[in-house]
């Protein structure tokens, strides 16, 4: 079940997520063409790539939101695309997913957003306990006094935090971040990057961070992978990846640090 791969990088524990020969295309346009990936326990893996390179598709397949055309995706030893609905739901409880636009439920307040999954999974939890847990997590994320606000009243950074709070409340073992700094100003981005590291330390989560923001990749990534044309072309630490004359890598770096 859990085949150990210890080939370089920061890997020093169990393989939590294992992807082998993953193919995915949309209406005959190939997006992923043979992706292999191993993510080890409690490491932060950053997947870099241009927009539309299929980064988001990769983590959505890992989360079971999309079905792969071919390949094996195992999360905590379970093959995601073969799971039954109930089993998948059980697995997803262990996975936190921060969506690109935070994906807060528009029609619900911050509190309702956070308690949405709680009240469905911890049915025996008293209302006061739920409120306490929510207040706690909001405090720890610097979101005091937002409980009864609607998502439309929040700033972009606050939304990301609520999105993180919404997943953390279920104590996930794996965190998947889809463009955590997308659409945020640099200052807020730095805050979110710190938050990602904090979460990893505090909850000991295994994370995959999808981004095209090199600052984010540099600060949060234990290991960086570069996705290009549906394949990983480089992997290693941030410095290792960009210590290269590969045009595809250089152009990426040049754009981000042009000044």
């Amino acid at each position, binding site marked *: 079940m859990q085949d150990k791969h210890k080939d370089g990088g920061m890997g020093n524990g169990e393989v939590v997520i294992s992807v082998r020969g993953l193919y995915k295309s949309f209406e005959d346009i190939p997006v992923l063409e043979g992706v292999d990936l191993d993510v080890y326990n409690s490491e932060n893996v950053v997947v870099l790539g241009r927009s539309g390179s299929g980064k988001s598709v990769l983590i959505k397949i890992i989360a079971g939101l999309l079905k792969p055309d071919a390949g094996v995706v195992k999360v905590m030893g379970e093959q995601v695309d073969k799971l039954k609905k109930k089993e998948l739901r059980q697995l997803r409880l262990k996975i936190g997913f921060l969506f690109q636009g935070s994906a807060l439920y528009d029609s619900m*307040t911050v*509190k*309702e957003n956070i308690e949405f999954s709680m009240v469905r999974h911890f049915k025996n939890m008293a209302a006061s306990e739920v409120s306490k847990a929510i207040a706690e997590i909001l405090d720890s994320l610097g979101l005091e006094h937002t409980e*009864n606000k609607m998502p439309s009243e929040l700033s972009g950074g606050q939304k990301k935090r609520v999105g993180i709070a919404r997943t953390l409340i279920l104590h996930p073992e794996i965190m998947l971040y889809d463009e955590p700094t997308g659409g945020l100003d640099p200052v807020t981005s730095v805050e979110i990057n710190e938050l990602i590291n904090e979460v990893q330390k505090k909850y000991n989560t295994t994370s995959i961070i999808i981004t095209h923001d090199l600052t984010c990749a540099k600060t949060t990534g234990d290991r960086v992978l570069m996705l290009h044309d549906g394949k990983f072309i480089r992997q290693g630490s941030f410095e290792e990846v960009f210590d290269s004359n590969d045009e595809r890598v250089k152009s990426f770096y040049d754009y981000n640090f042009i000044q």
Partner: protein
Amino acid sequence: MKSSKNKKAVIVGLFSIVGIAIFLVGVFALGGQHSLFVTTITVKASFTDVNGLTAGNNVWFEGVKVGTVKSVSLSGKPGVEIQMNIGKKSCQYIHNDAKAKIGSDGLIGNRIVIIMGGTADSPVIKDGDIIEAEKALTTDDLVNTLQKNNLNLLDITGDLKTISRRIANGEGTIGKLLKDESLVSNLQSVVDIVKQASVNTRQITSNLESYSSKLEAKGSFANDLVTDTIIFSKLRETVIHIREISKTIAVVAADLQTAGENINDSSKPIGALIHDREAADNLKTILKNLASGSHKLDEDLEALQHNFLLRGFFRKKEKEEAKAKK
């Protein structure tokens, strides 16, 4: 938050209950009107013609709705057997010698069954009783009478044909022809029939006219909605035709009568009668008038006119006259 949730629940509950209440009130209002919740007995009646009566039509007794028609079925016996549900409460007022007839609840309204009469001596109706049916005058009957009139008119033309044929065949001398008692009486009977037809037709026409004039509010929505416009326009056309026919018949009748009287008039010499241009012209106009009467008549009359027999006959007569004078 909780209170707003509860408020919504309360509003939805209230909203739903009022909605359901409206629904139930509707059900009970309908139930009251369609005597769904009223116990009924079933009574039968047989009609030769129910004029489009269908299940669900109302049954009236002395102008009060007492029940509905349950079923209409061809019984095989004479005509149609209908079953009526009559409310138990109303039964006690209807006696089993009452009669049923088909009517309508308005000028062009729904068909209804009207129960009427019944004497207090007879027992009241029970479940399964059969009520005697009475035939009502219907539009169809009117049309039937009209058809009979048409046939009569046909007979008249037939008679005239016979006359002309006899003349043409030269059955006996003209004197004999004109003396012929049977001819005179024939003519007389023709006159009678025509008169009768004319009276009948006029009556029907006026019936139909009043019937249709009520319908005739031109372009009126209800009219168009409720009646079949094609039937209506046909009916109107028919009325106009009949009116024409009736006028023609009246003229014909008058003419024929004069002719008949002339023949009968013993004071006039027969020769004078025959030479009488007036009489000849009369006969011609009779034929002409009849010709314009109806299409059916037309066909026969045209045949009559086209063989020129009469004209030929009169021309011959004139010539003979001229000779005799010389």
